[in-house]
């Protein structure tokens, strides 16, 4: 049963991921991304991380990809892009290098940590208490990292607003 769920969810994740890069139309690509995120949520559920699964759907599928779609629709780039035009000449070779490097890193990490992969780490916490455990860890041990992340996000939002308003010229004074 566990294997079946794993295989199905992984197929969802991979199919979605391939869809993201293979579809010409940005809206279809975004939908592929939604499929991937759902697959990951299913993985979370099968590992009894119910809270993470719900947050995965609410935040990623429900908010972030919706924003992607919003931008795609508002900017009107919802047509197939002409891929022959390349704004940055170095972009594609760089993308290949980075892609290879990241897959190399992940492979290396898996190979090195192979011995621990099969083990099931039992935290002694039943599945439903993981909200409580998560909260305890976030708000006690990692409270500074947590708060700094939220500050970072606010700064990013404010910065974006300031930058976009300055570019219009003459508006901010």
């Amino acid at each position, binding site marked *: 049963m566990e294997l079946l769920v794993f295989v199905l969810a992984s197929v969802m994740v991979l199919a979605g991921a391939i869809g993201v890069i293979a579809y010409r*139309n940005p*809206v*279809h690509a975004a*939908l592929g991304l*939604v499929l991937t995120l759902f697959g990951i949520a299913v993985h979370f559920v099968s590992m*009894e991380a*119910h*809270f993470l*699964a*719900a*947050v995965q*759907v*609410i935040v990623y*599928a*429900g*908010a972030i990809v*919706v924003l992607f*779609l*919003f931008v795609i*629709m*508002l900017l009107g780039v*919802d047509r197939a892009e002409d891929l022959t035009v390349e704004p940055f000449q170095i972009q594609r070779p760089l993308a290949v290098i980075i892609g290879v490097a990241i897959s190399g890193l992940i492979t290396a990490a898996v190979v090195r940590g192979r011995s621990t992969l099969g083990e099931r780490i039992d935290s002694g916490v*039943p*599945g*439903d208490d993981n*909200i409580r455990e998560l909260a305890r860890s976030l708000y006690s041990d990692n409270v500074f990292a947590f708060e700094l992340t939220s500050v970072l996000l606010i700064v990013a939002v404010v910065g974006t607003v300031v930058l976009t308003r300055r570019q219009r010229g003459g*508006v901010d004074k």
Partner: protein
Amino acid sequence: MNLLNRIPSADPMLDAESFWWQPLAVVGLKVLVVFVIGLVGTMFMVWFERKIVAGMQNRVGPNKAGPFGLLQTLADGTKLFFKEDLIPEKADPFVFRIAPFLAFVPAFLVWAVIPLGGDFTGGRDGTVTWFGQVTRVQLADPPIGVLLVLALSSIAVYGVMLAGWSSGSKYPLLGSVRASAQMISYEAALGLSLAAVLMTAGTLSTSGIVSAQSSITNWHLLSTGIVPFVVFLIAMTAELNRPPFDLVEAEQELVGGFHTEYSSIRFALFFLAEFMNVISMSALLVTLFLGGPQPLYLGGVDIFAVLGPFGGTAWLLLKVFAFLYMYVWFRATLPRLRYDQLMNLGWKVLIPISLGWFILLAALQVARDSDVSGLEYALIVGGCLVGIALAYMLFQAALNVARRNREAEGAAY
């Protein structure tokens, strides 16, 4: 009962020792009941709305099909089934086909976590025994309960958004951009007022929330101090795109909104989803704030006690009915908001209020948990109120500055 406590996740009956067919029968029965309630309830809601609005406008309303026109919806549905299914030339065929289901399926799934009844008489915990199985009258009781509803409502945005985009025409696109902006904005206020309830109840599971409201003073309506309830009610009306927040389908401006290009059964699915959402969200509101199937003792008497185990369901129906009527009443009486009014209400009124109230409730909860004396408690309340008042003044000042800046740039109001 021990069994229930031991396995909080999933359904308690999955673990019980019994004949193999009994759990299956219970699950099958529940699925069937939830499905039937969803469909029949929607059918009824459409009729109810048309009849009540007609009454309020001094008309007769549907009265030909069946007694009191009750079968009118069935007739309309049958008609829609046999209409031609059009796909506009400029539409994106795949997304156009899939969008109605993205709207419809989440609307249905919400029913799975709503406690539909149970035996709460005399302080019992709402479990019933069917086919020798101790179970709850709800399809699933996942530990994340209410979060599932939030997840589903955030998925429902896709249906609206993609329907508008894939139609390949202007008005649906405008309607869907409006709809998704509105749904995303109000989701924040909805979530914050929900958080107040979850904090007071101390659990996410819907059955846990219902059990926490064992008497009227424990109802979250009162124990969270009414404000979250009001915010939730308004935000929910906006989430549902119901009047007075139905800018999504403002017919004077947008023809029909995101589903302008839809016809036949695909349109029927949108229609069904909309009305089903009204019922399921009303049921959610009742579950969260009004004790769901918990009885209300009027002078110590439970008026539905005669129904025995169905008393809970009767109470739930009664409470949900009140809200359904209220929605119809809204529609018949309130004029539609302007778009800027809608956004102002969402961002500048509801979100700050629910956030402030949430902080207040959190402070009180902490004070209660750490057993402070009466004087300290009063000090904490006073401190919170002062803090909130300061924050409110800062907020107003910021709004004023922003307005003046915009007016200096030439905006007119």
